[in-house]
């Protein structure tokens, strides 16, 4: 049995827990991100590394320092976004610089020259451990199913509160219900039970009466980590909700997996999971951005255009400071905003971002959106 952890990103740990529990390993939940996590990450990460790298590095250092972890897993990648190289850098910094001892498992896709089938096979054998093949595949399938269901339900609830919080004055009621449901879903081991918890939470959140009006609708686009991990964006979404802005996110963990892992699966797995293709993204990002630029750069442009077509008031673009794909997207969003006459606020985050400046910009943006509504009416 291994004691495994991996970097924290929003609620994704709920899914990983389901998979590793099913395989009989112990999953050590990554500690919540705090100021200390960021300080640690900033201290040991390269100066110009992306902010998500600094946070996750800090989170791994915290997890390793507890002494409860002996294995870390991370997904690799093939670029061109820097994310694909995180694993190599984690290992270099944690082992060479800080001298931690642990087993590091890097999941690189078998694509030359970055990885090959042998590396993938070695990892499969590591996971299999003592189990028989039959048992291993059964458990793995069960684990994935449960993980997928949990992630989907958690995301549905998140989407719900991102809307609901804008309509009620006392948002603590909404959040209490939500947090309780998340806790229960995380511990549940049964598909039907997950559905039941979801249903109950959804009904009771929806039952809270709306007591605010004139709610704006804003879409969120940008880099996935900074959007999903509230501590990294200083809780921008909540700040918007509190000021009467309903939010729709365009990036999610499950969607990320659908877009990035599914297309690489071999036949017939790809067909079984229902790969949808990326036609929408390609269609809507034209003519502004005509090529995949890594990360969610192209998605940011396409979703912005979609939000415009669906009649949203504006878009908030969230990116980590110096993120390569999103910096390209940012430049192009300037043209999108100009040509479609659509307000876009780009917010970049790193360890130096102060809350005071952020709130000022958010409030000014909201005033601008209200003004536009009034002018249009």
């Amino acid at each position, binding site marked *: 049995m291994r004691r495994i952890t991996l970097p924290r990103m929003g609620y994704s740990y709920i899914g990983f827990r389901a998979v590793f529990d099913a395989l009989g390993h112990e999953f050590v939940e990554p500690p919540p991100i705090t100021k200390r996590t960021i300080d640690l990450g*900033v201290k040991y990460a390269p*100066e110009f590394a992306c902010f998500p790298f600094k946070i996750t590095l800090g989170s791994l250092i915290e997890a390793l320092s507890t002494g409860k972890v002996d294995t870390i897993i991370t997904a690799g990648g093939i670029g061109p976004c820097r994310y694909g190289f995180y694993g190599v850098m984690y290992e270099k910094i944690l082992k060479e610089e800080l001298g931690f001892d642990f087993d590091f498992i890097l999941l690189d896709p078998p694509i030359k020259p970055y990885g090959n089938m042998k590396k993938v096979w070695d990892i499969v054998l590591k996971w299999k451990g003592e189990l028989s093949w039959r048992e291993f595949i059964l458990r793995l399938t069960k684990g994935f199913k449960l993980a997928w269901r949990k992630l989907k339900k958690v995301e549905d609830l998140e989407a719900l509160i991102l809307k609901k919080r804008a309509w009620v004055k006392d948002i603590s009621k909404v959040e209490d219900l939500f947090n309780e449901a998340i806790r229960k879903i995380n511990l549940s081991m049964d598909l039907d039970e997950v559905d039941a918890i979801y249903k109950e939470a959804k009904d009771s959140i929806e039952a809270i009466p709306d007591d605010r009006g004139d709610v704006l609708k804003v879409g969120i686009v940008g880099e996935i980590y900074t959007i999903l991990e509230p501590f990294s964006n200083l809780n921008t979404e909540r700040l918007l909700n509190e000021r009467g802005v309903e939010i729709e996110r365009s990036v999610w963990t499950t969607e990320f997996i659908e877009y990035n892992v599914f297309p690489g699966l071999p036949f017939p797995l790809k067909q079984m999971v229902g790969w949808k293709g990326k036609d929408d993204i390609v269609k809507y990002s034209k003519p502004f951005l005509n090529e995949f630029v890594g990360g969610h750069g192209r998605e940011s442009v396409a979703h912005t255009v979609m939000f415009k077509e669906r009649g949203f008031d504006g878009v908030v673009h969230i990116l980590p400071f110096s993120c390569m794909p999103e910096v390209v997207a940012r430049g192009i969003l300037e043209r999108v905003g100009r040509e479609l006459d659509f307000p876009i606020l780009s917010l970049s985050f*790193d360890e*130096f971002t*102060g809350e*005071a*400046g952020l709130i000022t910009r958010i409030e000014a943006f909201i005033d601008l959106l209200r003004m536009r509504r009034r002018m249009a009416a």
Partner: protein
Amino acid sequence: MRVYLGIDIGSVSTKLVAMSDSYEVLSAVYLRTAGRPIAALLEGLRMVEKDIGNAEVCGVGTTGSARFLASVVSGADLVKNEITAHAVAAIHELPDVKTVFEIGGQDSKIIIIREGVVVDFAMNTICAAGTGSFLDHQAQRLGIEIERFGEYALKSKNPVRIAGRCTVFAESDMIHKQQMGYSIEDIIAGLCEALVRNYLANVAKGKDLKPPYVFQGGVAANLGIRKAFEKEIGFPVYVPKYFHVMGALGMAILVKRYVEEEGIKTSFRGFRIVEDRFTSKSFECSHCPNGCEVVVIYRGSEPLACWGDRCGRWQDKFGRGSVVGELKEVA
């Protein structure tokens, strides 16, 4: 008596040291540059002359961001960058020093030394958030004299945390904290800690820090910063007696070695230059779209040197003497 003169002109302060043959500091002058390096230099020379009387100056070395200007005006024998100068002075003060923190008005440096040899160094890359002018500016904002900053900082029990990559952001965060009602002592101590944290995170990032530590530069006078350093690195820091003029001291030592080894006679123009009129004029070169600002230094109407052209056009010609006439006209 043989005397060696070290001159360090930075953008904020001008430092001069006169050192005897036996490495004894005879005069240490510290004054504000106030944007007028030539005036500050001449004023400094006047003060040094008063201290050393008519001792014989056998060598002059200049350093600091205005080292070329200072060398042209004074007739220096040796021009060196301030990192080497600071390192030499620190090694002289504490021969087994391993790490030097230097925080001045406009820039800050770290120098790593092993067995009396510089093996690594860094200067601030991002901006002024890790330097003395940041503190000066905040002291002004808070209406407190910079000299009393340390005293306030030491009174704090619970320093506030001030965020910001850059002075502008750090300042807005500080104002924010002020509006929220934190005490002035806690804010000042917080500023000191923010400066040290920024310094260690930017300038000293990835450097191999080992004791003994020497802390020098104008900011070393500030007890709050000294305490913040000790808290952050967990070791005592040694502040040398002449911490504020270490660059000039290093230059005096270097020029002494240089003059003795090469056996040359100094080209120092002598203290009488304080009576001369030195002026600098600048013009925009129209030779290419870069539009460099070329600066020419004159003594009376005689051009002494010029610089500022990226392509080296004027400097090259000046070396060959062919533009002296042209430059005279500009004057």
